[in-house]
């Protein structure tokens, strides 16, 4: 057991990798919030009057609200007047027309984070909107998406250029007065992404937004709105990081999804905000409202989240299953380490007939982390033959952490079938012993067990690096990317475009492209480790893996689901190697 705890301790002590600060000149509002600030923000964004009014209404509502205290998290009170509600790099004030005009320092930041903003260099199949503090730096592939009629742009641009769409859907799922943080966000949101997929269009590429907090004393309040018209399909991924600071910073976002008849929206999150240090100093307060409205018949909304960062997470991505036969899904892995606290889960509100929902939540607590699953399944009278399955499992690593489960189940229709299961366990000494006995060292064993624990969520995700983010955060440096699980059936298969072939010439093996090794392994359908000690995602050592049937660049060295490289590949480089 001593070895186990030592290894786990070492791993728990790992530093946050994205904690650097970008040194750019910033324009920030002075701290404080009143009508003047909201008007100034709205004017700065060149918003129409209705938008300003909408914000002011939300602000007035917020001023009359009290901060919720029911969540199972503890933090010292937030002084909302000490936060600056707008901060943007000065170089972006002139709104650059193309990437060439963007401050190279900003581009370097995203390069460091592994976010491809140069379209020609970017991997095919993913469009990125990069948000830096309060503003969007760049959005790639806009033109290509526009060919299909897909709108993908920063929210502020959407308000200016597509006011009719924004006005119709903004606040339709999360009303401005929904809750304390949603009201605050409605008043001061600065940017975010707007996605509109017209009738019958399958969005040709993955959409992705990358949020970065950089400035001190600011909060980030972004607003995302995704609308999928009848028969449309879109898959969206968000990622986020922030510098290491001793102070706490507030991130209060609102995400709204609307799916009409037969539409489907898949929303994935890799949340890796700065979690604070070992003593719990600093870190982001992540108070987010996310809700999807499955409005049309047979529509589908799927949330996948991997929550590894943030000092405090308060987040309940929900689905309102209004259309008959609509489907809601929630797959979550939440990891709390050191002094992190997470209170997260989902709400599934069944309104339509034959609606189905599926909840799989995996919580991992280590160090002094406190992890809470809080969920509600509500089956209304109208929801005949509704079906729900919930599973929430917790894993505890170390004896100072806690895992809590609070599922609320309200069933008002007897034809509904609902099942809820929960379990809590630790990594058993016997399991570790079994692995050790078979020549797998403790670290690998822990990694393997954690992977197995989370496999139901990972298997739903396009992002094989979700896995590495998780294992890295909680237990082991190594993460085995099981390729079969990295390429789910719904994910757009990697296209062997000439361009990507050029950038990955034959003979390029994973060693020369460490950051991409993860995706590389992901495309190989047949593979096996040469030894149990080999590490799939650990860059140089991954050459030790043998990919029997995929030596050719088209099948092996090809970048796969690009989102993997977008967000997580930097993180998949283990610090141990």
């Amino acid at each position, binding site marked *: 057991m001593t070895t186990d705890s030592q290894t786990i301790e070492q791993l728990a002590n790992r530093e946050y990798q994205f904690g650097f600060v970008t040194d750019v000149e910033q324009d920030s509002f002075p701290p404080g919030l009143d009508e003047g600030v909201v008007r100034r923000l709205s004017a700065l964004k060149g918003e129409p009057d209705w938008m300003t009014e909408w914000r002011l209404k939300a602000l007035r509502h917020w001023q009359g609200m009290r901060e919720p205290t029911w969540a199972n998290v503890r933090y010292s009170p937030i002084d909302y007047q000490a936060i600056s509600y707008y901060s943007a790099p000065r170089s972006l004030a002139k709104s650059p027309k193309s990437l060439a005009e963007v401050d190279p320092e900003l581009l370097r930041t995203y390069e460091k984070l592994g976010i491809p903003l140069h379209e020609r260099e970017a991997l095919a199949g993913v469009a990125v909107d990069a948000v830096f503090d309060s503003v969007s730096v760049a959005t790639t592939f806009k033109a290509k998406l526009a060919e299909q009629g897909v709108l993908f742009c920063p929210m502020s641009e959407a308000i200016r250029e597509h006011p009719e769409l924004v006005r119709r859907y903004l606040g339709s799922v999360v009303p401005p007065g929904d809750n304390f943080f949603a009201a605050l966000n409605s008043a001061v949101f600065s940017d975010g992404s707007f996605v509109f997929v017209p009738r019958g269009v399958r969005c040709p590429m993955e959409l992705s937004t990358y949020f970065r907090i950089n400035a001190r004393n600011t909060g980030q309040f972004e607003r995302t709105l995704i609308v999928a018209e009848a028969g449309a399909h879109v898959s969206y991924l968000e990622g986020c990081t922030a510098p290491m600071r001793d102070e706490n910073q507030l991130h209060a976002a609102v995400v709204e999804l609307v799916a009409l008849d037969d539409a489907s929206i898949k929303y994935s999150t890799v949340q890796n905000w700065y979690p604070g240090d070992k003593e719990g100093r600093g870190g982001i307060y992540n108070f987010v409202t996310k809700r999807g409205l499955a409005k049309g018949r047979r529509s589908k909304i799927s949330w996948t989240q991997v929550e590894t960062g943030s000092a405090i997470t308060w987040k309940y991505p929900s689905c309102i299953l209004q259309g008959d036969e609509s489907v809601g899904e929630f797959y979550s892995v939440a990891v709390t380490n050191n002094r992190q606290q997470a209170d997260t889960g989902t709400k599934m509100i069944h309104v339509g007939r034959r609606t189905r929902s599926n909840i799989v939540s995996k919580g991992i607590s280590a160090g002094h982390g406190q992890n809470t699953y809080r969920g509600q399944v509500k089956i209304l009278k109208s929801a005949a033959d509704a079906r729900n399955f919930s599973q929430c499992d917790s894993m505890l690593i170390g*004896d100072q952490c806690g895992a809590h489960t609070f599922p609320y189940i309200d069933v008002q229709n007897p034809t509904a079938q609902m099942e809820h299961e929960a379990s809590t366990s630790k990594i058993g000494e016997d399991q570790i012993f079994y692995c050790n006995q078979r020549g797998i060292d403790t670290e690998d064993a822990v990694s393997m067990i954690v992977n197995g624990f989370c496999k139901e969520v990972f298997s739903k995700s396009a992002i094989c690096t979700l896995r590495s983010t998780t294992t890295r955060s909680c237990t082991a440096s190594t993460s085995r990317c099981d390729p079969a699980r990295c390429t789910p059936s719904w994910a757009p298969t990697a296209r062997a475009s000439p361009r990507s072939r050029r950038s990955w010439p034959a003979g390029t093996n994973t060693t020369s492209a460490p950051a991409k090794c993860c995706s590389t392994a992901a495309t190989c359908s047949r593979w096996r480790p040469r030894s149990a000690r080999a590490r799939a995602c650990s860059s140089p050592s991954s050459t030790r893996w043998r990919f029997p049937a995929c030596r050719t660049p088209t099948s092996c060295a090809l970048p796969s689901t690009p989102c993997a490289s977008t967000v997580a590949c930097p993180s998949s480089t283990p610090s141990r190697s």
Partner: protein
Amino acid sequence: MSEGAVSAEAQAPAAWLADLGEARLDHEPESVRAMRARGLERFSERGFPRPNEEDWRFTNVAAVARTRFLRPPAGIDTAAAGRALASAGLAHCHEVVFVDGRHVPELSSPGVPPAGVAVHSLARARPADWEAFGAELGRRADVVNRPFAALATGLFEDGAVIDFAPGAVVETPVHLIFWSSAHAQPTATFPRVLVRAGENARATVVESYRGAARGVTLVCPVTELVAEAGAAIDHYKLQHESLDAFHLALFHVEAGRGANVSSQTFSLGAAIARHDVQAVLGGEGAEVTLNGLYLVRGRQLADFHMRVDHARAHTTSHELFKGVLDERARGVFNGRIHVHPQAQKTDAKQTSRNLLLSAEALVNANPQLEIFADDVRCTHGSTVGQLDDQAIFYLRSRGIGLEAARSLLTYAFAADIVERTRVEPLRRQLQEFLLAWIPHGEVVREAV
């Protein structure tokens, strides 16, 4: 009843309390008087629970707050109560009967209790008796967070203290019957029970709360059960009050080192039945089993609020609750398992299953886990639904009619708990009730 009126009453329960007067027993020591004062003070301070409180979200007790309850009249019609209780008795049990909250020796089993058992009525307790149990009474029941337990602590008039001697093996179950007769005015009683099982004692206790078919009564029992090291106690509680009654109970069980407590609650009557159950596994190796069954119809509400505290290592708890709901009945299940930091190797299991027979029935289930130790195995499961179509189809394909098939499956669902009852006469009584309760029970009677 408007919300405003409720809160007004809730803020000023003084008038409501005044109707019930004060309670004071002969020879009651100073410490008990102080405990009563604390209970009443706490209740007056917080008032009636409101639906905006997390613990009372689904159970609205406004009807209790707006009804004026009186103490039952002093004279007891022993003969009438005896007739009513004729069918309630259990064969081969030592019975202790309380009518309208007061001990009636004439109706209780004659003679001394079985060897190893001491039974005291609180109202008849002498100073020497109080010396023996005065300090224990009310020591564990949580009056801070349980408003009706606070109320009952302030107002109890009688009750039973049962002591099982260390090492005693008591074959004869002790059966406490609390009978509420029908009165013209709504009446309130506050039965109080303390069960102490000495080291390695083995015994069975049955609590029956029964009432006339109709009549508004408020029954707020507080039961404390302490099982010392190695004791094994079987506890049964049957709630079969009048359909207009309010039954708001607290059951507190504490299991010491290696003790084993098994408790089964059957909630069949009452308009609102609320069972707060608190189990503390306070010694290593303690094991607690809490099972429950509720059968509700009409506008009945059955509410189970469970809290299991694993305070020591190597403790085990099992909970299985089943509910059958018909017509416009409502069921609430709130189960919380709290594993304290030092309670390593805890094994906790909690299951809540609910069967809805009608479209208007409603279930609110909220199983919760709070875990602060790392080496534990905790699971909970909750299901709500109708009868399984496939099972019905299977029976029909074998020539059993639809109604009969449904009845058989409903019976099987509920009988799972009933059959765990180890007190034979009680089990038979429950089976009879179940057969009479489920639709088309006569079909099942032929089959089982």
